[in-house]
């Protein structure tokens, strides 16, 4: 996608033609035998205070893309900009001050919280690392943060494993917002939680955004969750974004066949809902040996697949703010005629 969906220069985070490759090793001496293009030419911009949702099946490159966005990974190609500055090749020294502004919340807080630290130490750590305030000020800041995420102050003296999944996620969030970041990547933050607790955490994230103006990249496999918290949604398939639009549009007028299939697969908690289900055959193809043409066209065995080999299937704007891959296998003939 072109960053055009964001007015020039107004994006907080922006990637263009991002590529992240991983070596595949095999054989006796673990020589490199191939390359996985986990992220294969992705462009996306996130504005201040905006939530962009990222959906797709497991293995489609969502998490890899997120890590490249906050420069936990070095991209193999393309550009990463943060507040207008090119940070594609920035080293540790240049990245350190930026780390204050870019944080992550992970799926399983149990694995991302140090079991040997008290909750207070966990939340205080980013403040200490970035030398914010003196000990007394940091103590007060941790108290404020505990209040803010809805944990009693006494819980600061306990250890993370003493808490339930939902409370641990609150600890993870308190740590992520400790430095007043501008951008937070939420990687499946509620997937491990029960629905009643899931809604508590989603409300907390939405409240924090309103108060602090944080931008989120929100990754989840639950499309209903993503649609609910996001301003815009990007759909990813095999390392590429195939459709981007605001979340109402994605839900009401999806254009790409894969988006339609994903939406139709969500089980609706309403027994009287009459829906037509598009059952996809098979699984996501391997990124080690991807199809040469339209990856989704290949999966659904589309008769026009051959046409897509060696052709640019990049995103085009089908209506204002609604971008979709120019792919004859995945668009209705009428839609394809409009963009083709």
């Amino acid at each position, binding site marked *: 996608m072109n960053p055009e969906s964001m007015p020039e220069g107004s994006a907080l985070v922006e990637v263009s033609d991002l590529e992240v490759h991983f070596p595949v090793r095999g054989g006796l001496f673990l020589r490199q035998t191939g390359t996985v293009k986990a992220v294969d030419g992705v462009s996306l911009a996130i504005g201040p205070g905006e*939530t962009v949702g990222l959906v797709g*099946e*497991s293995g489609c490159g969502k998490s890899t893309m997120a890590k490249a966005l906050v420069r936990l990974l070095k991209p193999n190609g393309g550009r990463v900009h943060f507040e207008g500055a090119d940070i594609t090749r920035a080293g540790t020294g240049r990245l350190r001050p930026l780390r204050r502004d870019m944080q992550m919340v992970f799926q399983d807080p149990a694995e991302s919280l140090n079991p040997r630290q008290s909750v207070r130490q966990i939340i205080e750590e980013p403040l200490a690392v970035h030398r914010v305030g003196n000990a007394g000020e940091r103590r007060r800041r941790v108290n404020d943060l505990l209040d803010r995420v809805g944990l009693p102050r006494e819980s600061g003296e306990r250890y993370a494993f003493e808490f*339930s999944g*939902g409370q641990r996620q609150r600890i993870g969030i308190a740590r992520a917002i400790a430095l007043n970041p501008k951008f937070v990547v939420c990687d499946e933050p509620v997937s491990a939680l*029960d*629905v*009643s*607790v*899931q*809604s*508590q955490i*989603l*409300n907390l994230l*939405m409240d924090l955004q309103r108060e602090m103006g944080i931008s989120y990249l929100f990754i989840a*496999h*639950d*499309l*209903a*969750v993503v*649609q*609910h*918290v*996001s*301003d815009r949604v990007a759909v990813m398939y095999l390392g590429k974004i195939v459709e981007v639009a605001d*979340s*109402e549009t994605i*839900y009401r007028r999806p254009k790409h066949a894969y988006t339609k*299939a*994903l*939406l*139709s*697969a*969500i*089980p*609706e*908690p*309403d*027994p*009287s*809902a009459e829906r037509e*289900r598009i*059952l*996809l*055959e098979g*699984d*996501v193809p391997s990124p080690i040996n991807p199809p040469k043409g339209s990856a989704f066209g290949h999966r659904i065995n589309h008769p026009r697949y051959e046409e897509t080999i060696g052709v640019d299937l990049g995103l085009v704007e089908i209506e204002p703010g609604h971008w979709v891959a120019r792919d004859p296998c995945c668009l209705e003939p009428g839609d394809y005629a409009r963009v083709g």
Partner: protein
Amino acid sequence: MNAVNETEARNNGTLLEVEGLVSAFDTEDGLQRAVDEVSFTVGRGKTLGIVGESGCGKSVTAMSLIRLLPQPAGRILAGRVRFNGEDLLRAPDSRLHAVRGGEIGVIFQEPMTALNPVHRIGRQVSEVLRLHTKMRKKEAWEASVEALRRVRIPSPEERVGDYPHQLSGGMRQRVVIAMALACGPELLIADEPTTALDVTVQAQILDLIQRLQAELGMAVILITHDLGVIAESCDEVVVMYAGRVVERAPLRELFANPLHAYTRGLLESIPRLSLPPKSKLRTIPGMVASLGELVPGCRFCQRLGRRGEVLHHRPPFREAVSGHWVEACPECFQG
């Protein structure tokens, strides 16, 4: 087995009848009840959904039915589980061996742990067949190919020689289903069969289970935390909270007319595609108390921080509307 009971059960269309089931675990703090007087029935060829949040006793209930509680900590303390009129809780072990994998098939959440990584798929399916029938090795291998074909695994003649790691998550779950159905069971217990899978693969597996159910005329107990999955696949629903059945009703009745505050809370806290984006979601405050801290009375009131008599006396399980049962104190009853 009592022949009269059996004939009666066959005639009235009830396949499984669970009555007053109590299962407990030995813990450092003594014996703790994870399932506390649970009752429900499953009709022949019907699908019963058991829904609830983690730790509410869904899986322990299911495992108790076939006496597969983790040993030595797990124990069934009371109740009856009548399968075709025969009480499985009092049947000899040898009989249970025949029932499990024979008349009752079981599939679990994580297909990788249900499959042995060092044996070929064909050998694992054959093993089930040879255990329950008089088939010879070669016959069983051929029957395995057919079993894989039945669960729509493409080119089953080739896949039968694969090891589990060579298959994707969805394909592995198909193999597990093939094993569970190899002997044509009358009841399939599916414990979170799609939780570890992507939505697209989940849709395939649920569709497959429904089609096989129709082909084989078997009943299904589907355990899930996902009310969406329940809405799409069940005839009747049991809602569990803190080891107890708080509500039981036919599918449409439950969704249209939830009578327990917990059921209502669950239904309202799901983000739905039809809600306005970024609107505030309804929540259920607090969380389930741990096993050792549960009160004898209304446990949902306990979660909501209510106090008093209501925490001491267990509300009765009663039929509020025809076929619609609820165990709710006056505070939690939403009728």
